[in-house]
């Protein structure tokens, strides 16, 4: 937290920037860092650019080439993620052994959580589709087709990663006419086919509109290569949510019985009535036999001063 740091920010802009980066209860939308590797083919370079277009404004494309190997040394990505405050990354490269390689990954607390390497096949860029594109910042609908996304553990992890990558900004309310984008992931023959459509809502007979889709692009298939998944422990830690202050229900007390009275039941416990501490009554101090003498007369009340007189006398 800015107020917890030894170095204080000197400008308001600096203060705001630090406040943006600090740990929060409700987090910012995850930003994606797009990195080009040492060598990229035209296809994979274009694919990365399209990914950048899809993820704008929550994406950052690094200009220079970075000849790194994420699966061997992830420290560069972690450093950049810390520098630019991004928790998702996409790394594109091309080599003879791994043509059109795309590594998608995410970080927790600027440390690698999981990453998956895909081979991009059958890529068609965004510009080749003549359909008008959706506005920047639209929250897309996501569709996963295939039973493997719910059964196979690797594919479940991939689904989680893709959800995180493409979910868009977190909103409380959504404008129903603004549901314009659909991204479909289908599992087919070891490939995840990714298709992106523009939604047009047409009036139908009922209240629910009829959907028409136009493929907007980009279009590609992802073939799974290597992966480095988070252990259940790591994932559990990353999932830890802050304790939201809930209104604690107080038992036994009715705050308002409708007439403005606050009612409750007092549980006293077991009481021994003869051992109760009440006001001091001298009459109750004396044993009961004194009260009724044999002749039926009440014994005269004795005072302390009488005792003293007697003592002095005797």
């Amino acid at each position, binding site marked *: *937290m800015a107020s917890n740091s030894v*170095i204080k920010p000197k400008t308001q802009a600096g203060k705001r920037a630090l406040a943006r980066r600090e740990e929060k209860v409700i987090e910012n939308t995850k930003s994606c860092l797009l990195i080009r590797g040492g060598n990229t083919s035209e296809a994979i370079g274009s694919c990365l650019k399209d990914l950048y277009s899809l993820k704008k404004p929550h994406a950052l494309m690094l200009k220079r080439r970075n000849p790194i190997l994420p699966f061997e040394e992830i420290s560069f990505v972690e450093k950049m993620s810390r520098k630019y405050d991004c928790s998702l990354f996409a790394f594109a490269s091309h080599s003879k052994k791994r043509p059109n390689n795309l590594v998608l990954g995410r970080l927790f607390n600027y440390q690698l959580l999981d990453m998956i390497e895909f081979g991009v096949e059958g890529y068609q860029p965004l510009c080749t589709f003549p359909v008008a594109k959706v506005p920047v910042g639209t929250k897309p609908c996501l569709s996963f087709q295939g039973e493997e996304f719910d059964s196979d553990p690797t594919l479940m992890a991939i689904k989680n990663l893709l959800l995180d990558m493409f979910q868009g900004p977190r909103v409380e309310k959504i404008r129903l006419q603004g549901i314009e984008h659909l991204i479909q992931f289908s599992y087919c023959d070891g490939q995840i086919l990714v298709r992106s459509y523009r939604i047009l809502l047409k009036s139908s007979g009922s209240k629910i509109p009829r959907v028409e*889709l136009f493929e907007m692009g980009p279009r590609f298939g992802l073939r799974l290569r290597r992966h480095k998944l988070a252990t259940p422990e790591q994932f559990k*830690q990353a999932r830890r949510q802050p304790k939201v202050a809930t209104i604690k229900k107080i038992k036994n007390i009715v705050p308002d019985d409708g007439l403005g009275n606050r009612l409750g039941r007092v549980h006293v416990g077991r009481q021994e009535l003869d051992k109760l501490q009440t006001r001091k009554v001298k009459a109750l101090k004396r044993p009961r036999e004194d009260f009724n003498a044999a002749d039926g007369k009440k014994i005269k009340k004795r005072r302390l001063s009488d005792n003293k007189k007697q003592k002095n006398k005797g």
Partner: protein
Amino acid sequence: HAMSVLATSVPPTFDLGLLLINNPNPLDPASTRGPELEPYLAAVARENAQSLLSEIWQRLPAERVEDAVVAPLPPPSTPLPREKPPPKPKPPSRWEEFARLKSIRRNKKEQAVWDEATGEWRPRWGYGRADPSKEWLLEVPASADPNEDQFGRLKKEKKERVAKNELQRLKNISRNMRLGGTLPALSAGGGGATSSSKELKRALVVAKRSDASVGQFSAKVGGEKVGHLQGRRRHFLPNTGSLTAERGIQEQVLKELAARRTDPLNTERAVNRLQQQREQSGDAANAVNGRRRPQKKKTAGKVSTEGGKSRRQNARDSKSRKYKKAAASGRANQKMKSLMKSKTLGKRK
């Protein structure tokens, strides 16, 4: 393209917080081949989108906000990891503790203050405020030294106040650290991930058994349950003891080593060496400078010796091509070696 293959088998599930539809039906393998793939996928997508939108329209209550129809989204049900760990509660500072005990509450101050000197309302802070350090005239108080610089005094006092405030702020940070808070951020960004207790325990077990005695003599950490020792410990024979036993063991080792060699005498090598010796002694006359000369040297064609070619000659002929190549590279190596040899650092013995 009527696609009803998918709709009926397993109904899709939804996560409206993410605008997500999970359709667990597999794609029709026949339709995914060839040119039918794209129209088929588009049809599948259309069906999914329609189901999702019907779900949204039915489940979520629509509200009207300034000529737009909006629907509140529920929180997502799919577990997604966070970006950073949740914030830790900050311990209260010394002043905050004091204020809490004395039940001092913060009074909201108004932005404008009446400034007597100029006779107008001025903002309390920021541009246009009545800054005491910008005074052009200062009264010298009666108790003060007449030669004292009053403006300088004000400046000094302000500096001291600022320094005191800074000191108290740092004290609060160090206090938080001592009380077990997070390390203060020396730069922007979070700290490293803390291991869970399980991971720490595992690391401890591994570290302990990573020594020669497999953790037998390591100090026990508080709260640690020590199980049986896992891992093999190297056993060494005692240094002192029976000499004959030790000798016997060494002999055994040597025997095993010797038994491994199936052919203790390399016959081929022995024969070659014998031939060499014979030739050297026999061809002493031919040899110049101790070097054996090939018999082909003087004539262009092949040399015919009495009684046919010697075995050595035959071998040489068949391997001549191979040897020429080897010789060429050998010469190169020799050159390298001589070059290397010339660059010795010390005295050549």
